[in-house]
């Protein structure tokens, strides 16, 4: 803040003709800027707010009420939507929760192990493997999905959660490996050395020294894994074809295709329900999300 003032001051005191001809007083400029930004924020979020409001409206009103003021509250859409598919919507949320939980555990364990090796161990071929790991961050899932599907279908794993969780147990979310490598590199090596002098091996150093210090990186990993897995549609669409095994995104999509014109209210209601966990994760995990993006730069 002080930098800002300092930057402006010399220009004025030296009595130079100001380079910009008409400068509004800074208070006015500031108010205008906030008004502009607030307006933009409202425009950006308007569709989502409107969806939440519309989910509380009678079905017919959705097509003639662009506003976000409710005349009357109607929660029946939620009941209708909840029971619109073969199983209650809670069933799909539970399926999603299982996948999400498995993926979080998988990523935390496998990525932290790989990251420790890349950040702290000295081994043959390290540079090459590290380069491969970095490269695999960019690898589109579409390139590997066909052989993967063939493999998993021959193992009889289609319509189970295994094709969704097992890859995470194998440190294939290289983005998180990279994030954790960056984090471990920032920890002082003296800590490792001290533990080594006390006779600790790598297993112990990892578990007792590094892992407890990695909490922020683990939190970032947890939140991103949660959000991405909860939203993930492509692989869940491919591996889960039995309606009983559907997760939230796949269930929601089957809802859309079955009842297009008739029940937007119920569909909006379930859309809101499906976004709620994301929103909560965002609310409570913001700090880690922003830090995670700023340090590694993805998504």
């Amino acid at each position: 803040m002080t930098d800002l003032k300092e930057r402006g001051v010399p220009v004025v005191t030296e009595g130079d003709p100001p380079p910009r001809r008409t400068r509004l007083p800074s208070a006015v400029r500031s108010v205008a800027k906030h008004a502009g930004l607030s307006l933009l924020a409202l425009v950006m979020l308007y569709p989502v707010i409107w969806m939440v409001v519309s989910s509380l409206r009678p079905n017919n009103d959705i097509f003639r009420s662009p506003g976000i003021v409710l005349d009357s509250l109607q929660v029946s859409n939620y009941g209708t939507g909840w029971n619109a598919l073969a199983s209650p919507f809670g069933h799909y949320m539970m399926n999603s929760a299982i996948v999400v939980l498995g993926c979080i555990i998988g990523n935390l364990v496998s990525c932290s192990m790989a990251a420790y090796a890349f950040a702290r161990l000295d081994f043959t071929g390290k540079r090459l493997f590290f380069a491969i790991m970095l490269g695999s961050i960019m690898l589109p899932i579409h390139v590997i999905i066909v052989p993967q599907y063939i493999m998993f279908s021959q193992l009889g794993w289609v319509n189970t959660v295994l094709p969704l969780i097992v890859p995470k147990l194998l440190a294939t979310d290289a983005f998180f490996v990279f994030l954790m490598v960056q984090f471990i590199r920032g920890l002082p090596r003296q800590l490792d050395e001290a533990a080594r002098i006390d006779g600790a091996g790598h297993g112990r150093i990892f578990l007792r020294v590094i892992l407890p210090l990695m909490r922020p990186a683990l939190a970032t990993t947890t939140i991103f894994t949660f959000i991405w897995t909860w939203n993930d549609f492509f692989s869940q669409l491919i591996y889960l074809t039995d309606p009983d095994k559907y997760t939230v995104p796949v269930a929601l999509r089957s809802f859309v295709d079955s009842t297009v014109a008739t029940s937007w209210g119920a569909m909006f209601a379930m859309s809101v329900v499906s976004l709620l966990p994301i929103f909560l994760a965002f609310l409570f995990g913001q700090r880690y999300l922003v830090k995670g993006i700023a340090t590694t730069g993805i998504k």
Partner: protein
Amino acid sequence: MSALDARPRKRDNHARPRKRDNRAAVAFLLPWFGGLALITAGPVAASFVLGFTDYNLIQPPRFNGLTNVHRMLSDERLHHAFGVTVVYVVVSVPLQLAAALGLAMLLDRGLRGMAFYRSVFYLPSLLGGSVAIAVLWRQIFGAQGLLNQVLGVAGVPDRSWIADPDTALSTLIVLNVWTFGAPMVIFLAGLRQIPVMYYEAAAVDGASRWAQFRAITMPLLSPIIFFNLVLQVIHAFQAFTQAFVVSGGSGGPSDSTLFYTLYLYQRGFNNFDMGYASALAWLLLLIIATFTAVNFWAARHWVFYDD
């Protein structure tokens, strides 16, 4: 000579007490090696081989030489899908990055409430990939959707934006631009790295805001712009969910939202034409690699490294 002699000795001295941790590394990297073999590199190699076969999951794969390549050359739907995807990438990524950079510059420099705005603008990036937002998009741009309700106030006649082949792709482009928050956060982090004294010095010399942007912000931020560009291009090539939900899985109307990934999905998982789908997957990899390489090549002319 003595300097040359000194080098290996020095390295030896350094290396002897710290012998390599190969055994520990194997243990720690065991899951990762497994993933490499079974989930990432293995399937990439397998895709390549399968690309030269005819395979429907029931009968064993049968080698058919370059048949799939010939098929790709004459597959007009594929060429169309490629065109749709390139338009999507080339239009939406620059718009998205321009919005991200513009907002980042507005939010920089100790603006009060910055954290709040950053959160609000970032939120769509988290929601944008979900089926729920795709459902919402389908309503907003539908015949009686929110957009028409709003435009109707101004007397604009109703039309279905997603049922019209001329506008359907634009709705998906709007959606991608809407998620500018993630690159914006990266820009904000980058802007904070630029020393304020550069701007102070420029202001003393009477440089206008625009001149400051051209001479200070652009060059110093160019590595970050480049980074975001490479990343978002790769990301945009993989767009799938929104087109799938908005078009009901068809890529319609008239294939106007038939993204490459969607076409690949249809070949592989609707028709179980796994050999051809593998060839398509490899072509996608080559396309993305080419675009990335072009980006890196072009970077020499505009990205400025300050060291």
